[in-house]
Every structure is written in C-alpha cells, then in structure tokens.
C-alpha cells in the first residue's frame, strides 16, 4: 500500500457523526411525517443558499478528516520493508499540495510578487543593497512584475472565472436533465421553471449561489497556481491554505463540543424540570457550582494538566498530529463540560412550564410512563431550544477557541485553526505597514461559516415550528395561475372548501 491510513480520535468521532447523520437521514426519508418538515426546509431560499455554502465547508472539513501517512519512496526500497512518513497528511493536503509546499521566506501581501520586508541582498558585484526581493513562487514566472503583474492577474482571474462558469453550466445542464427525467417533463420546460423560480425547491437561488461560488473558486484556483492569493504569513506559509485547514478545526470544535454537551444538558435539564423535588435540587446545585467557577480558568487548568500528561508520556503518540489531535479532543470535552449549564438551565425552565401543560396531564391520566412522557411529549417540544442553542453555541465555540488560543490554552500550536491564525496576526497589527491579510482571511472564513450556519438553522427552525406556515408565496401563486382556468367561477372554487381552506393549506 502506498499509504498507511490513520484514524485519529477526532476523525473517529467525525465519522461517527457522519454515520449518525446518514442513518437519521435514511430514517427520516422512510417516514412521511418526519420528512414533511425537512421538505419545508428545502423550500426556504435563504436556507438553501446557506446550505450550498455550508456544503462546501463541510466537504473541505471531511476531506481534511481522511488522514494517512504516505510511503517514503526511498526508504522503502532500501530495507525491503515499508517505511511511512512521520508526517500525517489528509486527502485535502494532497489536493492542496501546491499551496502546502510552496513556502516563502516571510510575509508577502496577497497576489504580490515581492516580499513584504526589505532584505539585504548581495549583488553579483559584491555590493549590498536593501530591497524587496522577489518571491520564490509568487509571481515567479513574470519577467517584470511592475508592469506585467496586474494584467497577468486579471487575465488569469478571467480565465479561471470562465472555467468556473463552464463547470457551473455543466452542473446546470446535469441538474435540469435529472429533474426533467424525474418529473417526465421536457428539458427546456424544466429550465424555464427553474429560472422563473417556479420549482418547489428554490433551484434558482441555489444555482445563483453556486454560480458565484464556482466563479470565485475558478478564479482562486487559477490564481493560486502562480500567486499567493491571500498572501503568506510570518514563516512564508500560504494564508489561503491555513484558512482552508482551519475549517476542519472550527467544524470539529463546533460540532463535537455540542455532541459532548448535549447528553448532559438534555438529560439533566429535563430530569430537573420534570421530576422536581430533590433531583431538581441536586442538579441545580451542580450547575450553579459549575457555572460559578470562571470557565476560562477551569479550561486553562484542565488543558495545562492535559499538556503535562502529554509531555510526560511521549511514547503514547507516534506523530505530532496524534498529539495535537488528542489535545483538540480534550479541548472539546472540556468546553463541552463547562458549557452545558446554560442550555441545561434553559431546558429546565422550559420543562417546568411544559410539565404543567394539559397534554402532559392528559398523558398522566393515561398512565403513560415517565420515560415515554419525557421522550414523546417533552423532548420534541424542547427541540427548537436545543436547535437554537446548538447554532448559537457553534459560533460561540469557534470564537471561544480563538480566545483560548490567544491565552495559550487552546489547540496545539502545530494545529492550524482560526484561533492560532488570529493570534499570530494580532502581533502584526501594530506593525507599520500593517499586515492585515491573515486577520482578514480568518475573519472572512469564520464569518462565512457562522453566517451560513445561522441562516440554515433559521430555515430549520421555521420549518419545525408548527405554528409558522412556511410556504413560499411563489408556489401558491403559480398553482393559482394554473388552477384558475379550469374552475368555472372564483366563488365556486372557494365555496365548498372555504371553511377548511385554512386547515388544508398545508402540503
């Protein structure tokens, strides 16, 4: 085998999460009444646009999760036995090899051909000059960057954008062909439906988002082969590569922490609110105590203890990545343990309210067991709070990671994350001229990630709240247009069903 697959701890949990999502998705597909609200999610324009962007982030995150150690070519031939590199790479690293390997000396501005700092260069005649030296890779193909660079960048960007558009139009054709086949309509008819926004799923919005994404991606890909699109950092690493690598760290912290936190919050919060009495007292004391300890201190203490343990047991880890990964996992666990109190308190309050609701009393009157009341009556009715809390926490946790990395108790310094990027950029903010691109890149990516997650969660929340009707107006209008000619008079259409029209408005 040319590589040795490695499954780190967080990888395993990510695989588990993906597995759970697939199984739940399959289960929902099979039962029509669970599928209905999710179908409403797909009707939300903003939600689907956000999902398109989220999908890109998740794709990168998952690619970055498939880890392995490549075979060292020269070593294996010598000894007859396979020797693998100590460096753990991911599938994403392989795709982004040019970004990863083309390392400059130090800072360089985005799309620049020169270093950002003056350097003393010895000329062939022996004299020394201080000047901005050319980069090793960025714009290296240009003979005279002063005159050619702007034209070259624009040309490449247009070309890349063109390729992006081409890829996008392939997607559009493929999609409408697929839709036409499924609905047994003509290809062109499907096209007009899509572009008039008359389809049930807002394909037009998705395709517009996708078009923007494809063009941008095409341009970045085209430029990144000869430039550093987002510049380089202090040690000359490509910032774009770092930002892309940070996505996985952010996703892992955002999702795994919630995964660890949820059982505590759900179980204890609902139990406290439902059973009252001494159970409530005990749980309240636990979370009051826990939340009265400053969480940064608690996290710092736990992380430092973890760090000492890792350093005294170096034999447990074959690679640096394994060590950094374990630290990331523990960071998730500690963040999870310290952050469940807020959600737990919310759930306790909501459960206190719900347990007095008459449908719970009716369930008691039927002698429904406690477990069934909790799982069938209370849990579904607090799910919207859980959903909101997860999304709020997601962005909060990504930010918390940045803060902790700043204090020095965040992720391992060898692990690229938004936090470490911002922390590194912070030092250069005071520099004149300012190094702004690292910070901008981290902020931009974080902003995109959190915003699209929030928008998507909004759509989910709207679809799952039974009191809000989320039917896109366009669908109704278009069906009215189609229905109108077949009916003799408007009042005949409305009269027999009018009293129930409100009730049957749901699909």
């Amino acid at each position, binding site marked *: 085998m040319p590589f040795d697959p490695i499954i780190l701890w967080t990888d395993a949990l990510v695989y588990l999460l993906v597995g759970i999502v697939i199984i739940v998705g399959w289960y929902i597909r099979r039962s029509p*009444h669970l599928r209905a609200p999710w179908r409403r999610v797909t009707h939300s324009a903003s939600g689907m646009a956000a999902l398109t962007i989220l999908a890109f982030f998740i794709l990168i995150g998952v690619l970055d999760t498939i880890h392995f150690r490549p075979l060292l070519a020269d070593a294996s031939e010598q000894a007859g036995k396979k020797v693998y590199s100590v460096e753990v790479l991911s599938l994403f690293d392989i795709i982004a090899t040019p970004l990863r390997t083309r390392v400059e000396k130090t800072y360089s501005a985005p799309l620049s051909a020169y270093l950002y700092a003056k350097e003393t260069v010895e000329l062939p005649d022996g004299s020394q000059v201080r000047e901005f030296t050319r980069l090793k890779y960025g714009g290296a193909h240009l003979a005279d960057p002063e005159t050619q660079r702007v034209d070259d960048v624009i040309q490449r960007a247009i070309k890349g954008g063109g390729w992006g558009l081409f890829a996008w139009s392939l997607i559009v054709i493929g999609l409408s062909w697929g839709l036409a086949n499924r609905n047994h309509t003509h290809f062109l008819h499907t096209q007009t439906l899509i572009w008039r926004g008359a389809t049930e799923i807002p394909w037009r919005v998705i395709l517009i988002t996708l078009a923007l994404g494809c063009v941008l991606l095409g341009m970045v890909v085209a430029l990144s082969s000869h430039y550093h699109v987002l510049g380089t950092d202090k040690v000359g690493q490509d910032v774009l590569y770092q930002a892309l690598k940070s996505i996985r760290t952010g996703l892992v912290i955002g999702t795994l922490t919630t995964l660890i936190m949820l059982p505590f919050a759900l179980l204890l919060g609902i139990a406290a609110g439902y059973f009252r009495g001494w159970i409530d007292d005990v749980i309240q004391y636990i979370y009051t105590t826990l939340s009265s300890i400053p969480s940064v201190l608690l996290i710092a203490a736990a992380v430092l203890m973890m760090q000492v343990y890792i350093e005294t047991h170096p034999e447990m880890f074959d690679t640096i990545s394994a060590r950094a990964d374990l630290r990331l996992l523990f960071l998730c666990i500690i963040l999870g343990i310290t952050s469940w109190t807020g959600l737990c308190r919310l759930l306790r309050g909501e459960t206190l309210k719900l347990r007095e*609701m*008459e*449908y719970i*009393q*009716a*369930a*008691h*009157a*039927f*002698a*429904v*067991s406690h477990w*069934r009341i909790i799982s*069938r*009556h209370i849990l*579904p*009715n607090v*799910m919207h709070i859980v959903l909101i809390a997860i999304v709020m926490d997601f962005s909060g946790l990504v930010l918390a990671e940045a803060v902790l990395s700043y204090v020095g108790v965040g992720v391992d310094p060898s692990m690229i994350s938004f936090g470490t990027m911002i922390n590194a950029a912070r030092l250069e903010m005071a520099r004149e001229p300012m190094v702004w691109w690292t910070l901008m890149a981290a902020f931009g990516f974080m902003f995109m990630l959190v915003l699209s997650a929030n928008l998507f969660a909004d759509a989910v929340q709207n679809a799952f709240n*039974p*009191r809000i*009707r989320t*039917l896109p*107006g366009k669908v*109704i209008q278009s069906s009215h247009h189609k229905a109108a000619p077949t009916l003799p*008079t*408007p*009042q005949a259409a*409305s*009269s*027999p069903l*009018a*009293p*129930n*029209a*409100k*009730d*049957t408005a*749901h699909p």
Partner: protein
Amino acid sequence: MTPLLDIKNLRTMLHTGLEPVRAVDGLELSISKGETFALLGESGCGKSMSALSIMRLLPEAAEIVDGQIKIDGCDLLQLPEAEMRKVRGKRISMIFQEPMLSLNPVMTIAAQIEEVLNQHFDLHAGLAQERIKAILQQVGISDAARRMNEYPFQFSGGMKQRVMIAMALAGNPELLIADEPTTALDVTIQAQVLDLMRDLQQRTHMAILLITHDLGVVAEMAHRVAVMYAGEIIETAPREHFFQQPAHPYSQKLFAALPTRHKRNQGLAVISGQVPPLSQEFHGCRFADRCPHAWALCRHTIPEWIEIAPNHRVRCHLFDQQAPSLRSASAAEMPGNLPADSKKVMADQESELLKITDLKIFFPIQKGLLKHTVGHVKAVDGVSLTIAPGKTLALVGESGCGKTTVGKAICQLIPITAGSVLLNGTELIGLARSQLRKKRAEFQIIFQDPYSSLNPKMRVTDIIEEGINALNPGSDKSSSKQTSQSTSTENQVDTLLQRVGLPIEAKWRYPHEFSGGQRQRIAIARALAVNPKLLICDEPTSALDVSVQAQILNLLRTLQQNLGLAYLFITHNISVVEYLADEVAVMYLGRIVEKGHVDEVLNTPKHPYTQALLASVPTIESTSKRVSTHLSGELPSPANTPSGCYFHPRCPHVMPICRETYPEKSTFSTTHSAHCYLYPQDKDSSQTNTN
C-alpha cells in the same frame, strides 16, 4: 339628532401571511350620545379590529385602507398623529379585556391615572390628586385616598377592571369603547362591573361601544345591537326588537345555539362549518356556506341593507321583496329543525359510580431557605360527592373555588391530603402507580383549553393511540403481533374520530391545523379511546364560541346516551348546567355549599351564595328585570379562610352565629341539601356525613 360616532365603509387590512386579510370589510355604524351600542359576534369576526381602528391603535401589520370615522363630524382618519393623541383618552377611551395585563405593575394607580390627566388637562399637582380620588370613588373603590397610592398587584381582578374604567373615565370621554370588559371576570364580579358601567353612563351621558360575544351581557346592557360576521355588520336593531325577533339566520342560529333549560331534552342548533377565511374576496353573502336557507342568489349577490322594522335593518336576501314566502317558511322552521331525542332514564339509580368522601387538598405555603411550611392553601376543604352511572353532576363555582382541583384530584393528578375517592367501590387513593394504571381506563379528563391539551408535535393518530397503547401494555411489547395489533389500533382510531364527528383523514394532521372546536373533539376522542365510564369535563366549552359550544354539548349528550357515560361537569356557566346536568353541586372556597337535583337548585336555591350566583348571570329574557341581589366583594383567598361560614363576609343575611362555626347540613329533600344557618340544621348529619 346627529350621531356622536359615525363610521362609514371602514376597511382594515391585515398584512400577515400570504394574502392580506380583510379583518374589517365595509363596517358602517353610528352611535348617538348616551347610547350603549353592542357589537356582537364570534371570535375572529373583526370586532376588536374595528375598535382598534376607531382608536387608530392598530398593530403594525394592519392598515386602514378606506372609510370614514367621524366623531362629532370630525374625521379621525384625516387627523395627524399629534392631534389623534388629543382624541384618545379625551374624547374616546378604551377598556381592554384583561385587566391583569392592562395596568403597569410598577406604577401606582394614581400615577397611571395622572398620566391621562397630564395629557389632557392643565392641572396642578394638588388638584390632580383630588381629581384622581374623585374618579376612583366614582367607580366604587372605597377608601380611595389610601388605595390610589397602591400598586396594581394589591388589587383583585374586579378591582383592577374598576381602575381601568376609572382610567378610561379620567378624560371625561364622550365615547367609551369596552372590548369584552367582563370576559375575564367571574359572574358575580361581571355583574358588579356591568352595574357600574350602567350607572356611570346614566350619570355622565357618555356613549358606550360594547364589544362582546355574550348575548346575556348584550341583553343587560345594550340599547342597540349590531351583529358582526366575517368583518361586516349583518344586522342592527334596537335591543328589544333584536331579542324578540332576530332576523338574520346567523342571529337566529346564535340564539338557538344557546343552551338553556328549555332545550334540555333536545339537541342544540349548530352552525355547520366555520367563519370563512377573510383573505378571500366575497362575491355573495358571507354566511351563505353555513346558512340553512341559502339559495343560488346568496352565493352570487351581496345582500343589501333591508329595513324590516323601524331601526331594524338586516343584510339578508330572505327579507328581499322577491322572496317573501321563504321568510315565513324559515321562521316556522326554526324550532322544528332541532333533533329532538328522548333522554333515557337509567334504571340503576342506587349504584354509585364515583363516591368522594371528605376530600381535602391542601397546598403548603413554604417560606425561607429551608422551606418550612408556614400555612396551607385549602384548595379543597372537605368535599363529598357521588355520581351515578350515566348521570351528569355539575360542579359550579367562581374561579379559584377549587373546582378544577377536585377534578384533577379524582384523576389522581395531584396529591391528596385526606379523604377517599371510591370508583366502583375501589379506593383510588394510595394505590401504587402500577395498580392505578389498571384503573385509569375507567376515568378520563377533558381540559378547558383545547390549545394546550394537545401536544403540538404529535399527529392526531399518535395522540389518540397513546392512551390505547399505554393502557394495553400488550400491544407495546408483542412484536410478533405488531402488525395485527397496529391495524386494529388504527381501526379503533378511525371509529373514535367518526364518533366525535371528525373525518378519518384528520388523523394524519397535527393539532394546530384544527380549529378550537375540532381540537376539543380530538381531546374527547382521546379520552374515549380507553372506554371510560366517567368523564371529568373541566370547563370543556368555556374557551369556545357559542356555536361551537353547542356542537360540543350536543356531542357530549349524544355520547352519554350511546355509551352511558357519567360526567363530572366542572363549569362556571349556569346555562350549560341548566342544559346538561342532572345534579348540581355549588362550590364556594373549597366547600360545597349546596347540592341537589338541577331543578331543585336552580328553581329554589336555598343558600344565599347560590341565589346571588344565579342572580348575577345575565339572561337574555330580560323583559322582567329581576331584583338585583348582586354580591359585593370578591372570593377571599383560600390561604386565609374566614372563620365560621366561609361566605359570611359577602352574605346579605349574615347572622352572628355565621361568624363562629361552619354550618351543618340542612336537608330539604332526599337529594337537595345546603350548608346555611338560615335553615334548620340536621342533627344527625355529623354521624352520617355521607352524601
């Protein structure tokens, strides 16, 4: 005489959801000085929207698109907002439904009234205080000088509504808009507030626009009546005329749907369907879909105003000159279309399905860090009741007297302090959870609010199946029989839905897709799923409109006849009691003060409280005004009960002995008894305190 308020062609749109809703669609009305004009209609007809349109206090999503609102010839819709502020509170005032929510809890009463005074008058501080005191005295708040500096939480519900009225009166308005002013109050308090409003009107000669759904309140208060339906007025008439001869089929139906004693042995008239959604454009009569007399013309032509008597106008094609024959036919048909059914007399009079003896439920009042008990709220304080199979016992009383607590205690939903509950001879109190589970199928409960009694996240079929599954544990576990079990359960659900008059397709939907009446049907189906013998109905119709209430009462009556159910009917609505109950128990502050057969209690009430309660109920047969023996004061707190007879602080016949010890039972017949010193006390009742 020019009218004080003159509204022409008022149209208010609500821009919520997909299509604009025509909440008020062509409203026309005029009110003269010193007149009480009642706007009557079911919920969702646009009554409150009309009131808010007059005040120009509409929510943001609403918009007045057309019309004129003239007060003394001045069009309010043309005024700039700054001018409008001088009209609100000064020329037009408004009282809202919930007195608990309409007062700012962190401001004293005086400060809140002073705000109104400062806005409209240029009074210096001392004069303003005098004025506030005078206004509070005017609305019957005793010791006004002291109480004006108290906060709203120190006032009871009825007192708060008085304060609200005082606040509305502070600017000496020419028009008072009262939006369901007594709906949230008890009958005895309602009678007090209505008395007050009538009294104030006579003194100040202001006009009142009374918005209500209660025909009884209209009969007591109004000079003229307008019936509103689906955003427009369909009939307007002087009160006497309206109550003698309602013209519009909808008005007639409203009267027919009212439960009364005369309709005891027949079904109530129901209005099929619901109020049509107001988002549509109407091309005919709005009531056509629900009207029994509708014909083709009704669906195509909007009926115009037709004057059938002086000042009595109606919007209905029945009164058109073209179709006079139909009108007489309809008038003759009205009483006949009620499905009369003879009530079965249960032979088994002796047996007792449910027997409660000396039931006590105290809630501890805890204080301090260690939560030591400093007192008890005596929610239920020694209640004894019996219900025979197939019979209905009505438990009547004001809110806070412990009716609901009794119902929940019978269902074992709250811990019981003392007493016994025997169901079919089995003691329910003290049973372990697993033993109780077996008995649960025999009694079920229906709650007041159909909106909170159904889990919004469960489909109707899941809601109904839950009871079946929980009480038949076999169906949960036996996986081999799963399929046959589930199909039989499904059939059961279908039968239940049909029995309560819902389509079978309804089972795949969620509760929020149904109207209030339909939800209550689902709740009844859920309770019936386990074939109970006793159904505890906790105010099942008080959240519903009259026409929907009629449907539910008919359903309950039919179910009782077909299935032989016994009901414990907890209510504050005397007319429902008259219609449905066999026996009545009147409850006051955790104790039953009088009980007996429905005719005995309602015709010859013995206890002063029962007498006052019955006198407070507004009736529509108001031709002969009764002597108003309205109660003063309000229900005392059950945490701090009066000594002796609990009723003595409010009793008009109070004697010294009433203040000392609680009276024993006085028996008037085998079924009728009361606890009052006005009647000879039973000597032996202390030994045999059963029944």
